[in-house]
């Protein structure tokens, strides 16, 4: 992969500036573009994996870098209620007028009910500020800017113009960039234990206790990305108590509700636990995975406040953030979600097919671990089935990742993260064999 990049740089044509000047002594150099000094940005690791995978002619190749669900024959999956909803929408011949700045009220109301619960009293009393966002990323960005502008000092004294947002170590690679670009300071709390390939709970608790009071703490509601390691319900309860004691601000990123266990209520348990414990949470929701709407950018940001007046104030400030970024959010994706959730039969199909996706992932985990054990691997592969959601932090080393790529045409990111969506009943045997070979 790196060789390809180097070659591309070397083979790029020389800038025109040099090629048209006969001699620097006689002709003044043509002015260079103001953009000529722009530095090259860092390579996208995941993209690099995909590029290398695509270039590989091996028919047995496997792409474990894919960030979207794939069915058992490795194809993208459009849920049947989504297809039906699209047909109905086209048939209905809706207009394409601008949504309000905060997006579709119908969609947002449904989204927050899915997260907080159908009968949550905070939702009913209008205490939840909310807006439609450009998927989970957009929700995180809106929240980041809101926090940068309005997070008050905990006690007397000046507020921090660059509030601290603590991310679990590791977290989704884009989180740090989002919060930095929002103007926040990014820090970390201990999370993943590479030795056990599970949660370093004691380390997590002590690093949250050591952090300055009133820090913003980003929590993955379920199916932690990239490790798949989630706290147990008891651990969530303890974390809730720690955050309360430290007056930390919980910020939940929920990208996999329903996609993790197959059940929307089960997957939202951490969020609802914190709400019940009295935390005034910030919540980013994505509908990319649970509705399979990835590229349509469907998401929701909500902020639980103390009163309806406060919620309205927060709503007004969120609009001020959104207007100079994109004016108003896209309409196509939320129409699909509204259509599905407003028809009991379509909603039933959605829950069923979402469960099907989650169960396929879980069964691939079971099969992969089973095959590795059958092959006589002496490594402990419990984490494959203990970890949740799309990703498995395999513990495979950088060198082993390279071997998997070079010797077996199995592609994954350097950190050993496996996207289980890339595993099928057809390729799981080959995969187990390859992993076993490089980890013997």
């Amino acid at each position, binding site marked *: 992969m790196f060789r390809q990049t180097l070659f591309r740089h070397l083979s790029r*044509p*020389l*800038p*025109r*500036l040099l090629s048209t000047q006969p001699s620097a002594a006689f002709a003044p150099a*043509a002015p*260079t*573009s*103001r*953009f*000529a000094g*722009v*530095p*090259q*940005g*860092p390579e996208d690791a995941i993209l690099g994996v995909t590029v290398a995978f695509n270039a590989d002619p091996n028919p047995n190749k496997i792409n474990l870098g894919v960030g*979207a669900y794939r069915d058992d024959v490795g194809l*993208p999956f*459009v849920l049947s209620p989504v297809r039906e909803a699209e*047909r109905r*929408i*086209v048939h209905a*011949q*809706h207009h*394409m007028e*601008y949504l309000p*700045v905060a997006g579709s009220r119908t969609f947002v109301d449904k989204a927050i009910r899915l997260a907080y619960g159908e009968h949550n009293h905070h939702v009913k009393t209008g205490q939840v*500020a909310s807006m439609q966002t*450009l998927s989970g*990323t*957009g929700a995180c*960005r809106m929240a980041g800017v*809101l926090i940068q502008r*309005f997070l008050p000092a905990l006690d007397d004294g000046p507020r921090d113009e660059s509030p601290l947002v603590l991310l679990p170590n590791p977290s989704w690679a*884009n989180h740090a*960039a989002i919060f*930095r670009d929002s103007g926040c300071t990014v820090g970390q709390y201990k999370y993943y234990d590479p030795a056990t390939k599970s949660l370093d709970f004691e380390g997590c608790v002590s690093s949250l206790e050591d952090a300055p009071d009133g820090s913003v703490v980003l929590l993955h509601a379920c199916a932690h990305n990239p490790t798949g390691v989630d706290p147990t319900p008891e651990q969530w309860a303890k974390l809730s108590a720690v955050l309360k004691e430290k*007056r930390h601000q919980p910020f939940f990123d929920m990208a996999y509700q329903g996609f993790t266990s197959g059940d929307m209520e089960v997957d939202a348990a951490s969020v609802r636990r914190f709400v019940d414990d*009295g*935390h*005034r949470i910030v919540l980013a929701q994505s509908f990319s995975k649970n509705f*399979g*709407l*990835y*590229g349509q*950018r469907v998401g929701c940001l909500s902020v639980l406040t103390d009163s309806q007046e*406060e919620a309205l*104030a927060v709503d007004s*400030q969120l*609009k*001020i*953030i959104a*207007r*100079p970024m*994109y*004016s*108003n959010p*896209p309409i*196509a*994706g939320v129409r699909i979600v509204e259509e599905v959730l407003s028809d009991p039969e379509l909603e039933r199909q959605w829950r069923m097919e979402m469960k099907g996706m989650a169960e396929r992932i879980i069964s691939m985990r079971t099969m992969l671990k089973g095959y590795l054990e059958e092959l006589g691997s002496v490594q402990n592969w419990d984490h494959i089935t203990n970890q949740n959601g799309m990703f498995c932090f395999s513990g495979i080393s950088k060198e082993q990742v390279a071997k998997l790529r070079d010797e077996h045409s199995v592609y994954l990111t350097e950190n050993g993260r496996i996207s289980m969506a890339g595993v099928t009943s057809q390729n799981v045997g080959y995969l187990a064999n390859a992993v076993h070979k490089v980890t013997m």
Partner: protein
Amino acid sequence: MSSIFSSVPTAPPDAILGLTAQFRADPDPRKVNLGVGAFRTSSNKPYVLPVVRRVEQQLADDPSATHEYLPQDGLQSFCDASARLILGADSPALADGRVTTVQALSGTGALRVGFAFVANFISSSTAVYVPKQTWSNHRNVIPAAGLPRALEYRYLDPSTGAVDIAALVEDLDKAPAGSIVLLHGCAHNPTGADPTQAQWLQILDVVKRRKLVPFFDNAYQGFASGSLETDAWSVRTFVAAGLDMLVAQSYAKNMGMYGERVGALSVVASTAGAEDAVRSQLKATIRAMYSSPPKHGAMVAAAILGDEKLFAEWEGELVKMSARIMDMRVKLKAALEKNATPGNWDRITSQIGMFSYTGLTSQQVTFMREKYHVYMTANGRISMAGLTDDTVQYVADAMKDAVESVVKQD
């Protein structure tokens, strides 16, 4: 625990959007909405272009269509076609490979990513000059992107309703080298007053003289005159001069895809070689905002731009939409002359695009809203698309009363 946001103040409502809310709440049957900038048919209905509907049907019927993520810089076929549309398929900049085009969240998103790019990778103290009369959101986007608050260059001559080119050039002649100049490609919002070709050349002159970086905002290509080529003349003329420049495009009006948020940003470099680096940084900016752009609208636009028949159909739609706007201009002017409203109303037909700056004061605007339930923004801007044959005389009569009853203040 109390919310950390307990002391968040309520922000003022957006001027334009607040107007729509007020209009909706108004029960008076005579009400006319000349506020929002969306096209309306002669029956005052929103309009989805038939060619857009047909493509949507095709997409819905296509069993291989998926909702997979687009790359951060969007749908490539859309970006390439979009660049050709505004710059011209034979553009020297395209031939030289000096253009980097990314998909954006309509015009707003293109402006935001463009300004953020300048702030992060050119200089965060880059001065930006906007016309004194400009879309109100321009002044929000610029500081939100990390640049200093926008400075102004004089634009409209209020006595003629046309561009005051001498003042414009005088102001830009004071701009420091490297400053960004925001220019409306055509159909200036809110005034409808566009420079003539000769005036555009004068603007190009001062831009070159002062080494300024133009940033063209194109929200109305094809929608203004009915011709995509004519409406791109200003942009293409500047590109032909070989400048560094930025170009924003929106398909909200010209394809009627308002809520789909379809747009593009092109960074045009005066020399080749920077494209990879520019693209990588635009992608990084986008990634931290929303990861990747929405797919649906871009797929529709790409299909239209990429198919000869669909493209021709779209061109026909542009002629129809711009003709309706022009028809309303002609009729409003005639109605104002017929009822002998004081003043010279030539500007109604000499201005172009969706908007017209009537010259009404904010007091007169308020009067028209309160007495006649005719809604427009406080700066006297009317959206011509909000007029129909049924309402044009009523609006003209309301304007006459406002001009005669409310002594000019502001």
